[in-house]
């Protein structure tokens, strides 16, 4: 088995990695739609979906079939081209960003295979550039629907995403300054070599809090889900969507959540490194990564069913007058600290 695995040509490994990671992402997104209902039921002393398959595990599949066979409605006066394009624009960027997340290293005999689709020197730039595009799905979908609820939802969603993107980028910048690299793999290695996860450093802790808040706003999740905000906006920018295109928006949201959880685990919690056991075997590393990311996914659901929603002006005030100044100050202090305790020069 090991000899066989060591000799497989490069391209088969590539295809296998892409299939595993991409399939894992889609599978996680599907399971998250079930977990959302299961966890909410558990928090509210209900049962949740439990009819399809054991413990309701096949519910996402049933949902998917339902969405495919539903009738697709396109409102009159909608811009058809953009209306059809927007769900894809919402889903694809967040799916693509998973490519640079280092999930671990597979060791086969002497061979070490990094378990991520791409190892880019500019991995974080790639993630931010693509992540910034997911706003188009909301804004164009809201505009193209030719409905006031959709338009307002789209405007709110995009205003919020742009505002919190600054905080998100600045909090990531702190980690980049501490690790000295934009490569996510190098950030994990730096944490392993320091023997300290970034979250346990003073600057890293501040950045972690800001990053987590911003990631909730970026993914349009509760308590910042003003894109939907049922009592005010019916369904937000996807009010007019139905069938599979509606499902695509949700797929995009859950994929974005998964990627944010993975990024949180990578940047602040050492990614695939096992706590207190640096020489842990590789499969424990991957398991550790999945557990860490899984915790943050759970956090998304936990917060949604615990906290009440903000008001939109409160959200903006928090973003621009609290989070952004703290993030800026944090970057300044870290910059000074790195410059004066320079390791390299």
């Amino acid at each position, binding site marked *: 088995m090991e000899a066989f695995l060591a000799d497989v040509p490069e391209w088969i490994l590539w295809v296998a990695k892409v299939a595993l990671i991409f399939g894992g992402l889609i599978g996680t997104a599907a399971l998250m739609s079930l977990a959302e209902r299961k966890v909410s039921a558990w928090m509210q002393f209900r049962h949740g979906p439990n009819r399809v398959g054991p413990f309701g595990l096949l519910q996402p599949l049933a949902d998917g079939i339902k969405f495919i066979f539903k009738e697709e409605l396109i409102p009159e006066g909608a811009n058809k081209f953009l209306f059809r394009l927007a769900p894809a624009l919402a889903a694809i960027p967040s799916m693509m960003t998973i490519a640079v997340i280092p999930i671990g290293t597979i060791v086969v005999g002497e061979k070490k295979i990094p378990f991520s689709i791409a190892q880019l020197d500019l991995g974080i730039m790639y993630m931010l550039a693509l992540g*910034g595009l997911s706003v188009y799905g909301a*804004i164009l979908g809201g505009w193209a629907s030719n409905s006031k609820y959709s338009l307002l939802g789209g405007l709110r969603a995009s205003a919020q995403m742009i505002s919190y993107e600054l905080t998100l980028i600045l909090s990531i910048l702190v980690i980049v300054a501490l690790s000295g690299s934009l490569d996510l793999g190098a950030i994990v290695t730096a944490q392993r070599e320091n023997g300290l996860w970034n979250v346990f450093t003073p600057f890293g802790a501040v950045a972690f809090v800001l990053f987590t808040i911003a990631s909730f706003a970026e993914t349009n999740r509760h308590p910042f889900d003003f894109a939907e905000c049922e009592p005010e906006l019916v369904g937000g920018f996807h009010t007019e969507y139905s069938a599979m295109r509606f499902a695509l928006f949700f797929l995009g949201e859950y994929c974005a959540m998964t990627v944010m959880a993975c990024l949180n685990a990578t940047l602040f919690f050492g990614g695939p490194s096992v706590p207190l056991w640096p020489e842990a075997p590789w499969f424990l590393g991957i398991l550790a990564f999945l557990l860490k990311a899984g915790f943050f996914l759970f956090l998304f659901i936990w917060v949604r069913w615990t906290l009440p929603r903000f008001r939109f002006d409160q959200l903006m005030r928090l973003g621009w007058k609290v989070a952004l100044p703290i993030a800026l100050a944090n970057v300044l202090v870290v910059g000074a600290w790195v410059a004066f305790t320079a390791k390299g020069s």
Partner: protein
Amino acid sequence: MSSILFYVLALVALLGAAGVILAKSPMGSVISLLGTFFALSVIYLLAGFQFLAAAQILVYAGAILVLFLFVIMLLNLGAMGSRFELSFAPLQGGRARLAGAIAVAFALVGLIAAQRTTLAATSAPAADAPAIDGLEGLALELFGRYSLPFQAVSVLLLATMVAVIVLAKRQREGEHGGERGGERGGDPR
């Protein structure tokens, strides 16, 4: 292979640029501009400038164009069509001809300049010049040799921001009491 890709991308970029001018609705212009930015970004990637490609998407597509979209959506520029249509009206008239002539002149100057620098580069390759495609090389150039121009540009941006705030404030004071009329549904052209 990469030269074919380049020509395809260049064509996409040019078509997108033409679409910005020709699209009837401002929304169509923004979508065309988005296509142009993407094509440019991939051209940068082909040329090996990874950082530039990512920055192009991050800054132009991710931030600036979204602000354009905001303005368009908030101005409520007339009824929107259910399809994108082209209008060749902006290409007619003396002004358009003048603008076209200026654009062609600039393009010619650019082409000549590009030829000259290519000739210079091939005749004397810089041996130990830092690679600008890498992040470190870029940072060294930006904060080293070009530190002064870089900061001058930052000051310029800051000045623009202050000016915009001042203008917006003055307008708000000016309209005190009365309602702004005649702005909705107005044609920007």
